[in-house]
């Protein structure tokens, strides 16, 4: 089956892509860039890096920009998926939804409307196991956004490793944070993954932190051989 992956460049959509590639044929990436920094639907920091990730994956990418107004974001998503169906004859869509009924439901509606299959291969996965799977599969993932107390600027830009997973699980026990950031507490950016033909090297970056949230912005990056 020819599939398009809703791709933000974060750990969940990249892992969902990995699962999809093992079972079916991934034909393209579909990315929504939201100009609203607190987008209710889409992963935001470093979304522009997704073009570089698409190049690393050697997959074509359909990109649409929205201003993050609630219902418009969704119609833009439908336009992008419809374009992928037309241009690349995809028969289904893959998402990285884990727990969010809201996110899953919206994509299900759009797929149903367009007559496409919908796949959520990470659905209901244990969040700690999901983080550990990334390490097992040798994904290189950094924390590119923190949006909840007690996460602070020290977390930004950190690579996910066993020690960091333990600390996140500890915070889950103390503060009820979701360790994989499924509640939007953490956003991530994937710099390398098994399907990447090249990896991403960050050349210039900056950290912005205010109140209880902050982002690690990649200002300049390039692909280098693995």
């Amino acid at each position: 089956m020819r599939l398009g992956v809703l791709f933000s460049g974060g750990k969940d959509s990249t892992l969902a892509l990995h699962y999809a590639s093992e079972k079916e044929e991934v034909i393209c990436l579909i990315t929504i860039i939201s100009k609203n920094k607190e987008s209710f639907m889409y992963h935001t920091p470093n979304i522009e890096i997704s073009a570089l990730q698409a190049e690393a994956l050697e997959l074509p990418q359909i990109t649409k920009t929205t201003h993050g107004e609630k219902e418009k974001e969704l119609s833009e998503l439908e336009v992008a998926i419809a374009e992928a169906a037309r241009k690349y004859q995809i028969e289904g869509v893959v998402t990285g939804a884990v727990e969010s009924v809201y996110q899953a439901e919206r994509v299900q509606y759009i797929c149903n409307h367009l007559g496409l299959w919908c796949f959520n291969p990470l659905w209901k996965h244990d969040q700690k196991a999901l983080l550990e799977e990334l390490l097992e599969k040798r994904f290189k993932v950094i924390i590119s956004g923190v949006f909840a107390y007690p996460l602070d600027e020290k977390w930004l830009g950190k690579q996910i490793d066993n020690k960091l997973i333990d600390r996140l699980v500890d915070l889950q026990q103390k503060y009820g944070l979701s360790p994989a950031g499924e509640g939007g507490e953490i956003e991530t950016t994937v710099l390398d993954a098994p399907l990447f033909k090249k990896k991403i090297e960050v050349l210039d970056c900056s950290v912005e932190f205010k109140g209880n949230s902050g982002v690690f912005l990649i200002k300049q990056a390039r692909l280098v051989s693995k």
Partner: protein
Amino acid sequence: MILVVDMNWKKESLSFYEFVLPIVTIAETQDECIIKHFLEVTNQDLSQCDRVILSGTALKDTATLGQPEKFMWLREIEKPVLGICAGMETIGVVFGMRLIRCLEIGMTQIKLLKENPLFYEDFKAYSLHGYCIEPSGDFEVWAKSTKCVQFINHKIKPIYGALFHPEVRNPELIKRFILLES
């Protein structure tokens, strides 16, 4: 032992992670599970297990509904069976019920109609279905949404059907099914 039947259109499909694994994760907290694709369920599986759970499928996947002959064992089995979504629809087809187009996606209010051992009041559950069933006289209705029948039980046999997906927001329902006396 619980036999979890993978109702997806093919064995080891991409939908397996979404519709079978979450059920197994919940069921394994109560008892040992074996997983079989619906085309590969054997008489030995049915005699070895204590109960059976039929999984749901992707919205576009109607593979089991066109092959009721693969589920004729449902008419004979005396052990508890819980059909989830496509699993319930398949029970419906096997027992001669009519399928009706009916789309529900997302959190749905489920209204309790009859006292029962699996849920005790109205609740919200995740729905993802393109069909519902018109229950036949052999079954009673335990719950409904505003649009359709959501939970059925065979009047004589321990065969249950949930149109919603309890594995998403109502895991306790699956646990109670496993703890029911067989």
